[in-house]
Structures are given as C-alpha cells and as structure tokens.
C-alpha cells in the first residue's frame, strides 16, 4: 500500500472530532472498520476547565466561569501507541473515541484513511452546519433602506 503522508496534525484532528457530535463520530468511525484493540490508560474522566475571557475582548484575562470537560488517554494493544482526547461536556465515550482516533492515526497506513475517510467528511459537515447557521443569521441582517448608495 502506498503511504500517503499524514496531512492533518493531531491538534487539527482533535479540533474536528471535539466539534463533531458524538453520534456522528461514532457512526463514521464504525464505517472505517479499523480493528484496533486498546485499553484506557487515563480516564475517561470528567472535570472542569476554567474559561477565561479578556476585558473588553482584547485586554487582560479574567476568569469567567468553569465548563465541564472530559478527557481520556488510550494505548493500542498492538504497538502501545498512545492517543489522547479532550472534549467539552461529560461524554466519556466521546473523549475515548477522540483518543482512540489519535492513537490509530499514529500508524502511517491508517493515518491517511483516517484523514480522508473520517476527518475530511466530518470537517465538511461541520463547515456545512456553520454555513447554514451563518446564512440564518445573515437573513436577520438589517438592510437600511434610507442608506445612500452608489453616487
């Protein structure tokens, strides 16, 4: 099999997977049918992250409040590759899946498939959802008809 270099960084995969609803990730991951036996070496566990804001949006940081956060680390049984996952909320399975994908993506032969068959389509549906939301917002944009336009 020809080895395609991995096009996405672990942080990029993490981002797409964390922004994807868990059910969609689970379904897509199952379609890949990568047989990876693994065990959890940390978690999955839930805790909190302190969310920080900035005064005026650009100034000094301040503590806004906390959010729930789950994380997991897994190791593949075959080659002991470690994977890590973090996700907002309390869904342990979601964190575990992200960690599992991260571990599997360390195998060059799997990385390309993961990027092309999992991350790319999920990134596309994410972008699609965001586009739709943005168009919904755009429909509420005010058109000032008293505005003088052109010359």
């Amino acid at each position, binding site marked *: 099999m020809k080895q395609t270099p991995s096009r996405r960084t672990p*942080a990029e995969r993490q981002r797409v997977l964390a*922004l994807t609803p868990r059910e969609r990730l689970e379904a897509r991951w199952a379609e890949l049918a990568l047989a990876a036996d693994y065990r959890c070496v940390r978690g999955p566990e839930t805790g909190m992250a302190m969310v920080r*804001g*900035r005064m*005026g949006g650009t100034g000094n940081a301040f503590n806004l409040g906390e959010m729930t956060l789950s994380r997991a680390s897994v190791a593949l049984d075959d080659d002991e590759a470690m994977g890590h996952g973090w996700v907002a909320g309390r869904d342990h399975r979601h964190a575990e899946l992200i960690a599992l994908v991260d571990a599997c993506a360390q195998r060059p032969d799997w990385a390309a498939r993961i990027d092309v068959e999992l991350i790319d389509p999920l990134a596309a549906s994410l972008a699609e959802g965001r586009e739709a939301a943005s168009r919904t917002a755009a*429909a*509420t*944009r*005010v058109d000032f008809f008293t505005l003088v336009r052109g010359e």
Partner: protein
Amino acid sequence: MYVAVKGGEQAIANAHRWLADRRRGERDRPELSVDQIAGQLNLAVDRVMAEASLYDPELAALALKQASGDLVEAVFLLRAYRTTLPRLAETVPVDTDAMRVERRISATYKDIPGGQVLGPTYDYTHRLLDFMQLAEGETPEPARAEQALEACPQILELLDDEGLVEREVDDGAAPYDITRDPPDFPVDRATRLQMLARGDEGYLLALGYSTQRGYGRNHPFAGEIRIGAVEVEIVVEEREAPVCLGEITLSECQMINQFGGSREAAPQFTRGYGLAFGRNERKGMAMALVDRALRAEELGEPVQGPAQQAEFVLAHADSVEASGFVSHLKLPHYVDFQSELELLRRLRRDHVARHESAPSAPAETPAEEPQA
C-alpha cells in the same frame, strides 16, 4: 446548658416525597424531559449556567427540572455539583473577535463591517401574549439568506482610528481566581468581572439601572453586543499547540461611556465590559454598566452611587450566598431566641423598676444596649 434536640426525620422525608409529587404535576400529563428543558427553555438554562458559573447545558436543564423551575434553587444545585469536579485546566482566553455570531448589533455606529445582525431576538416584538402558543401549531423554519455573514470584527477595535475610545491592552497579568482564594477587598478588575459574571441578573440589572437614573451617572452607549459560539482551547502537556475542546455560546457587551482624561491624557470615551455564558444579553449589558460604575475610583470619579461601591456591590451579588444567608433564618433558632427573650424580660423589669422609683429621683444612666 445546651440540649440538642433531634426529630423531624419522618416529616422531612414526607415533605420531600410530597415535593417530588408536586414537581411531577398531574400524572396524566407527559413528564417534562431534561432534553425538552434544554431545547425549549434554553434562556432559563443559560441563566442558570451563568449564575452557577458552570457551563453545561444538560446539567443546568436537570437542575431546572429538579428545582421545578426555581432559578435561584437551580443555580444553587449546579453550583453545588461544581464542587464535586476536579479542575483539569484553564482555557486560553476566549477570542470573542472570532465568535461565530448569531447576533451582533451596535447602537453607536450604523454602518459596520458585517452589518447589524439581529439574530433570534425578542427586541421589536410587541410583547403581546401570543395565544397561538396555547395551541400546538407548526413553527416555520427560520429564513436563510443566500450568502453567509461577512466577517464581523470587534467594532471598538476597528472603527476608532482617532483614539477616541479607551483601548484594552493585555499586559499579561495572571487573573485572580475567587474559586481558589476568597476575594480580599479592594479587588482588581479581573476579580470584579469574575464576581459580576456569576452575579444574580436581577441584582445587576437593578444596579445598572440605578447608574442610568443618576446614581453614579456615566452615560452609556451600547458600543457592541454580540452573541454566538466561540471555540475553547486549553494547553495540555501532550500537545505543542493548544487543543480545541469544543464550542460554548457567549454573550458579550461592550459599553462606551463618557469621558475620562487627565492633565497628561486627552479625554477619551471609557469602557465597561460584560461577558456571560449562554444567551444572556440583559445580563451582559447590566454587567457592563456595573463594571464601568465600579471603575469610578480608577478613573478619578466621585463615588456617589451604590453601584460604584465595590465591596457592597460584589459582596451581595452572588445569589447562592445571598439566598443561603437569608434562608438560614428558617433554621431553628430556638436557643438564640430564648436568650433574646431572657434579655428582653430583664430589660423590661429594669424599666419598670426605674419608673417605680422615678417620681423623685432624676433619670439614671440609660439601660445598656442589648448585646446580640
């Protein structure tokens, strides 16, 4: 002598059982699900998250269900749950400039890059009860424009090339965290913002309103209000770059207020800032008003209104603390009250004794003030 009194276990158990029944309502009606609360009472959910200071819509909806819709009780439940979780990380400060806005308006500049975007607002509704809501009707899908929104940059950063508005610049200071160390007055602005962000909306609204009515007047304009989703990132050992956890919805208010300035600095508009979890526009606006009012001392303004008095404002803003201390009055105070009764009886005996001997003698020293 102190005698401990026990009792009431059965009464308490039965009271809670009755409460559960009351919460459930009529058994022939469908039970409300946490999903429905999160989906259809989402503004209540957002308020609970903001004031509990914990972003988790499902838990906030659960708290609302458990509290039968009592917002202050729900805030208390979620705040209490918060104490059971470990702190795993601090986030990179959220970049509200990169927010995926669903609403973004300015009351100070009409023509702004990205435009005035109303979003799903109650503004401009007529506040007439909609009796259609009593019937189960179809709700149409929202309208969609052909094109997505253009970029909506932060207006105050963009449209002020004359330097008329105070700039907010990061000097890298690490923020104080009231969840780790209790606030020690006087407190800095980062601490004030953290306390205001979890403050009771009604309380902050009243204080913000008071500044508009003249108690610490600072003439505000809503420079920009934006609501939408921001991505949240944390720094972890396992990665070089920060990792994205997901998105949260925030409401941000940039208030522009009347001038500060000194012999050295030219007059400038000053600013107040509000940021809140969820769709919490009123809270964000109230927070920005109170934030600005609390900057009075820093900006060399006379402290005249209640909203400008930091310790008073901040020490009473938290509904969990406030309702806790008020509610504790319901707990048995039988012994305290007994001692007050004893004291009062003694004072009255002394009073009678003084009056019986009074007609000839001049007034003696007044009775001592009762000690609490």
